[in-house]
């Protein structure tokens, strides 16, 4: 195992985070704070409880997931896309590092950034609403699992994208709508029956539901199903990455 290689990629990617602190950390924390002010404090104070949880507290897991998903994807996709774009990918390809080590470096750094961001949002939320975490270990487990899974998904997008527009299109046009419609701001039980069934095709529902269960012990879908769906998506991402390195898809000619 080339530990120095993994560390080099990881450190390089993390250095980019500290270099772009405003964009990487401060900006998502600020936008999430605005969500808390608008939905939690202003609108939330006029809304009733959902499943016994105040509205301000109810939206915390969804808001963390919203940032976690988009940041995991954008960090990891940019991490691998930029060396392709600038041509510096030659160095990674010619180095004695395996596909696993390359992914560990890029995905590890992207997931770390997202987890730091999730923790910061959680701390920020405390300034606006009271909340408790019923299953803290499960909460941490879901946080890490989701960050790693979606960083892998971001890695795949970064490999697939051959211009900046493609890099943005999946997070903006697919992930953000799915998160908003995945129960970030409401319980899917509040939807008409037909829409409840349709919503179950949205994979983000399972992530938010599982994460919310870890916070408050209440969920839209069974926790086992949530965990299973998340693991299934992780497996899909791992298989896709394995295929990318096996065939050299958009990395090697």
């Amino acid at each position, binding site marked *: 195992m080339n530990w120095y290689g993994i560390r080099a*990629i990881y450190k*390089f990617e993390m*250095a980019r985070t500290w270099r772009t602190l405003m964009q990487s950390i401060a900006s998502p924390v600020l936008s999430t704070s605005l969500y808390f002010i608008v939905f939690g404090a202003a609108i939330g104070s006029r809304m009733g409880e959902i499943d016994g949880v105040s509205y301000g507290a109810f939206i915390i897991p969804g808001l963390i997931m919203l940032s976690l998903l988009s940041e995991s994807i954008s960090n990891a996709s940019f991490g691998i896309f930029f060396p392709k774009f600038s041509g*510096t990918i030659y160095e990674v390809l010619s180095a*004695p*590092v395996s596909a696993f080590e390359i992914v560990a470096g890029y995905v590890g750094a992207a997931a770390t950034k997202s987890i730091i961001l999730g923790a910061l949002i959680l701390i920020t939320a405390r300034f606006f609403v009271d909340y408790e975490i019923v299953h803290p270990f499960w909460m941490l487990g879901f946080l890490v699992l989701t960050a790693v899974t979606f960083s892998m998904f971001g890695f795949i997008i970064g490999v697939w994208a051959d211009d900046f527009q493609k890099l943005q299109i999946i997070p903006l046009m697919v992930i953000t709508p799915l998160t908003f419609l995945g129960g970030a701001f409401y319980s899917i039980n509040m939807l008409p029956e037909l829409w409840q069934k349709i919503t179950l095709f949205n994979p983000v529902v399972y992530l938010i539901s599982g994460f919310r269960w870890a916070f408050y012990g209440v969920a839209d879908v069974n926790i086992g199903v949530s965990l299973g769906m998340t693991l299934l998506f992780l497996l899909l991402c791992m298989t896709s990455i394995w295929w990318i390195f096996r065939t*050299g898809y958009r990395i090697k000619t």
Partner: protein
Amino acid sequence: MEPIISVRGLGKTYTGGFTALKNVNLDIRRGEIFALLGPNGAGKTTLISIICGIVNPTSGSVSASGHDILRDYRKARSEIGLVPQELATDSFESVWATVNFSRGLFGKAPDPAYIEKLLRQLSLWEKKDSRIMALSGGMKRRVMIAKALSHEPSILFLDEPTAGVDVELRQDMWEMVRGLRESGVTIILTTHYIEEAEEMADRVGVINHGELVLVEDKHTLMQKMGEKELSLHLPEPLQAVPESLADLPLSLSEDGSQLVYRFDIKSSDTGIAELLRRLNDANIDFRDLHTRESSLEEIFVGLVKGARREKEQQLTGETQG
């Protein structure tokens, strides 16, 4: 001695159908400077990219220091450093960070003393904290070399190392390359500047249309394939080569002021004595004379043109057949 790089039956056909390499066989000797020459699109960069692991081969095998580049890629790649043709750098990184990154990527433990020595050798030490984007093109090229040498490779590929750099930097690089060879590093360079190969290489390989046309010791090549010219400066210009000398390989310069005689370097009888005698018989005087050997560039151009003619003849033959 076992070659440090061994290429056997290497072929590469890209997805679009373009064949960049055809059955290339090549041995690079340990410790030599090998110059790979060829026109644009000949397959030089593809060959280097396959050896370094950037491009997948379609057929054939390559070993570096006895390690197969696919089966034993870790050991093979650890031995190799690459300076690519394009100036691809992490613009926002500092020189120090990017060179240390490269060392780590190649699985080497941090060694600040070695990196300092390397940066000093490449006159980069003063710029170690500068962002790469703030450096000149020449300095960026040095950074690329520092990155390639950061893991102390025994084989160094330089793909067009002096393209677009000024004369002074080119001389510095030649000096550095010689220094590396003295320290035991095997160097393979591709270049458009034939004088570069002539100046530095021990052996020369010529590649054209994906085929290795020849591999030869530089001096042997220049002796074997080179011609020599004897130019005679005439006091009075001539209109044409006199008929009495028409059977000799003589030509007249455009202004008629020089007679140029071409002869084979390796021939025991150059025919110069006879030429001088017959010039005397024809009452042709000369006020000065000098000789010149054909350069590697002329040999290279001749080889490439020859290969092209051969290909055209083949094609014509196939069409007629």
